[in-house]
C-alpha cells in the first residue's frame, strides 16, 4: 500500500529534482518498505517503532488550561513525504516542536530513526532538519553567512560548510542574494534560506512547519521540487500545512490532527477514501457552516 519511491508531481516545473545534493544515503531507501510499518496497526503498541523515520507515542502537552496535544501517536515511514494537516490551533506546531526537541513534552516518547529525541538530543538532532514556523532567523547575517553559521553549529568543519552552502544556494536559486542581509529578503526567500539552513547538515529527516506559508507559487513549486528530490534521495519529509490541495498533490502519507488528537492517518489514498482530501478533511474536523453571514455584511 505504500508507494516506496514516491514521485512527486512536478507540474512541469523546470527544476530537475534529482540533483538534490544534501540527501544522505539512507539504508532503507532502496529496499521496499514493509507495508505494516506505515499502517496504524502498530500504533497501538506503546513502544515507538525503531524502523520509522519518526515515531511518536502518546505525546501530551498542556499549556495552562488548554491541552494543546492530547496523546498523539504517529509513525512516519522512512522515505515518505508526510503531510500533517489540521485546522488552526489543532496542535500541529506543538507536536512538531516536541518531535524535534524544541519543546519538552509533558508525556510521551519521540524517536527519530530509533533514537530517543529527549534522552539523546544531540544524536537525534544531528539527523533532523527543522524549519520552525514563525521563528525569526539571525537576519542580520547575509544569506550565505546564515547557512554557513547553521552548518558550523551542526559541528561540521568550515570548508564543508562553505561548499555545502554554495550548493544549497545554487539549488535554491539564491546565489544572487547570497550577500544580502536576510532581513532584506522577501518572505519566499526567507523560507528558502531557512530551508537551506535546515538541510545543510544533511539530515535524514526534514521537519518543516508551514513551509509554504506566504511563499509565492513559483517559489513554492521550486521548494516542492527540492523536497521531492530529497525524498527520492532516501530522505523523509514531514510538512505541516493547511493547504489541502498542496498536501494531496505533494505527500504520499497524511495525518489529520484536530483538537490535539490524530483523527486519521495513513497513505493519502487511505485517508481520503476516494473523496477529495479537502472534503474529507472538513468532514473529519467538522466546523463547516453553511450560511451567508450577517445581514449588515451584505452590500447587494
Amino acid at each position, binding site marked *: 500500500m505504500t508507494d516506496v519511491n514516491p514521485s512527486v508531481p512536478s507540474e512541469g516545473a523546470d527544476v530537475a529534482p534529482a540533483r538534490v545534493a544534501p540527501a544522505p544515503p539512507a539504508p532503507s531507501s532502496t529496499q521496499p518498505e514493509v507495508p505494516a510499518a506505515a499502517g496504524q496497526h502498530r500504533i497501538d503498541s506503546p513502544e515507538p517503532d525503531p524502523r520509522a523515520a519518526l515515531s511518536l507515542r502518546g505525546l501530551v502537552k498542556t499549556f495552562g488550561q488548554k491541552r494543546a496535544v492530547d496523546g498523539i501517536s504517529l509513525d512516519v515511514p522512512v522515505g515518505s513525504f508526510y503531510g500533517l494537516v489540521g485546522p488552526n490551533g489543532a496542535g500541529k506546531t506543538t507536536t512538531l516542536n516536541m518531535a524535534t526537541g524544541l519543546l519538552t513534552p509533558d508525556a510521551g516518547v519521540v524517536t527519530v530513526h530509533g533514537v530517543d529525541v529527549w534522552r539523546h538530543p544531540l544524536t537525534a538532532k544531528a539527523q533532523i532538519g527543522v524549519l520552525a514556523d514563525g521563528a525569526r532567523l539571525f*537576519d542580520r547575517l547575509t544569506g550565505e553567512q546564515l547557512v554557513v*553559521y547553521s552548518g558550523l553549529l551542526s559541528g561540521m568543519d568550515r570548508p564543508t560548510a562553505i561548499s555545502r552552502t554554495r550548493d544549497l544556494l545554487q539549488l535554491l536559486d539564491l546565489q544572487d542574494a547570497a550577500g544580502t542581509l536576510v532581513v*532584506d529578503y522577501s518572505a519566499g526567500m526567507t523560507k528558502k534560506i531557512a530551508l537551506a539552513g535546515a538541510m545543510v547538515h544533511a539530515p535524514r529527516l526534514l521537519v518543516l512547519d508551514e513551509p509554504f506559508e506566504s511563499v509565492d507559487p513559483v517559489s513554492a513549486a521550486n521548494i516542492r521540487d527540492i523536497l521531492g528530490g530529497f525524498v527520492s534521495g532516501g530522505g523523509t519529509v514531514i510538512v505541516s500545512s493547511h493547504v489541502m490541495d498542496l498536501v494531496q498533490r505533494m505527500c504520499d502519507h497524511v495525518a489529520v490532527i484536530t483538537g490535539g488528537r490524530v483523527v486519521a492517518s495513513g497513505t493519502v489514498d487511505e485517508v481520503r477514501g476516494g473523496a477529495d482530501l479537502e472534503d474529507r478533511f472538513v468532514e473529519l474536523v467538522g466546523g463547516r457552516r453553511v450560511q451567508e453571514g450577517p445581514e449588515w455584511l451584505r452590500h447587494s
Partner: protein
Amino acid sequence: MVAALVRLRLLVLRNSFKRSVGQLVAVILGGLYGLFVLGMIVLGLFALNFAPTELARTIVVLGGSLVTLGWAVLPLFFSVEQTLDGPHLSVFPIPLNKLLVGLLVSGVVAVPGAVTMLASILTAGSWLRLPGVAVIALVCGVAGALLCVMLSRAVTSAAAGLASGRRFKEAAGILIFIPLILLGPIIAGTASSLRHSANVLPSLADAMSWTPLGAIWAIPSQVALGDPLGAVFRALIGAATIAVVFVVWRWGLARSLVTPVHATSRVRASGKLGPLGLLPGTPAGAIAARCLVYWFRDPRYLRQLVIVPLMPLLLWFYTTFTHVPAIVFAAGPIVAFLLGVTLIADVSFDSTAFVLHVAKGVPGRADRWGRAFAVLVFGLPAVVVITFLMAALHSEWMPVPALLGLSFALLLGGLGVSSVTSAVVVFPAPAPGDNPFKTRAGANTALLGSTFLSWGVLAIVAAPEIVLLIVSLVTGDMLWGWLCLLVGVVLGPISLAIGVRLGGQVLDRRAPQLLMQLRKDA
C-alpha cells in the same frame, strides 16, 4: 473614541497584573512607592505655606523643570506603554485629533501620569494664603502635567520616526542619542559648578522660569510676588511650548501611522563571510563570530557599545566639574563591568532565532563560550586602552595595575555570571529591527530582578580584587597593585570558566523552556 482608548489603557494595565505573580508584586511595590513619594511631595507642598514666597518659587520652579525634563528624556531609555502607540492603532479608522486626545488622557491615567498630575495640581496647596494664586496654580498644574505627558509622547514618536526612517542608518540612530546621554552630566556639571557660588538656586530658578521647561511652573509664584507682567510673559512661553510640543507630537504620530517601524539595511558583497571566516570553525567560534557581527551591526547591541567610548568621556566631564581626578580612573572598571553584564540580554536579543541553536543541538558550553568570547574580543582591548589612556591623561601610573586587575575581574567575572543568568531567564527585549530604545512591557521587572542578583554575585566574585585595589590605594604601596593584577589575571578566567560551564549545563537542560518563553514574548 477617547473613552474607548482610555478603557483600553486601563484594561491593559489590569491584564498586566494577571501575567504573573512577580509582576503583580512589582506593580504593588511600585504603586506603594509611588504613593509614598506622592505623599511626601504633598506634605512638602503644603509645608511651603509657612515658607517665604521666594523659597516656594525656587522649589516649585526647579522641581517642575526637573520633572518636565525627566518626562522628556526618560522615555528614551525606559518603558513607555506600547499598546497605545501609533503603529498599533494605525489599522483603526480613528481621526488623528481624537487619537491625540485619547492618547493624552490615557497617558494621564497611567501610573506615572497620574502621580505627576496629582502632584502638579496639589502645587495649589502651597498657596492657601492667597486663594487667587491657588486657582492659578491649579490651572498651571494641569497644564504642566499635560505638557509632561505630551512631551514624552512627542519625544518618543519623533525619535522612533527618525530612528526608523530610511535615510537614517542604524548607527546614525545611535549617534543621535549620544548628546542626549551626555545631557545629564552637562546639566549636573553646570549645576554643581554653580552651587559653589552662594545663593545660586534662586537665580537658577529664575533662569529656568524663562525656559520652556520651567515657565509654566513659575506663573503662580510670579503673581504672588506681585509681578503680573512677568506672569503673563511666562504664560506666553508656556503656551508656546505646549503648542510646539503638540505640533511635533502630531507630526510624529501622523508619521508613525503611515511609516512601519522596521529599519532597512544595505546589501553587501557576496562571498564575504566576515568574522565567520576568521574565527575557529567550531560551534563556539561560529557563535562568537555571529555575536561580533551583531555587536557591530545591530542597533540594540550598538547602543551598549557606545558606552565604551562614552563612559570615559562622561567621567572626564565629572572630573573637570568636581575637580576630583580619581573619578576618571573608574572608567576602566566601569566599562569592564557594563560590558560584562550586558550578556544578560544576549539570548533575549536573539528572540526566537535562538531556535536555530536548539534545533542544531548546540552544546550549552559552546553557546556560552561563543557569546562570552565575542565580548572579550573587543572588551579586553577596550578596557586596557581606556585604563592606560586615563592614567596618561593625569600622568598618574600608580593605580594602573590594580585597576587592570579589577577590570579583568569585573569583565571576565561579569561574563561568567551573566552566562549563568542568561541561561536561566529570558525577558521581553526589543525585537530585532525595532527601535533599540523601546522597552517591552513587562521587561523591567524580570530584568531588574536578574540584573540585581547578577550584580550581587559579581560583587562577591570580584571581592578579592576590590579589596586589593582599596588596600593598594590606601597604603600607596605598588606591591598591592601588582598583587591585584595577578589575582585578576588568575581569578578572572577561572570565574569565567566556571560560569560558562555552569551556564552551559543549565542551558542544556533549559533550552526548550527558554525557547518557549521567547516564543511567548515574541
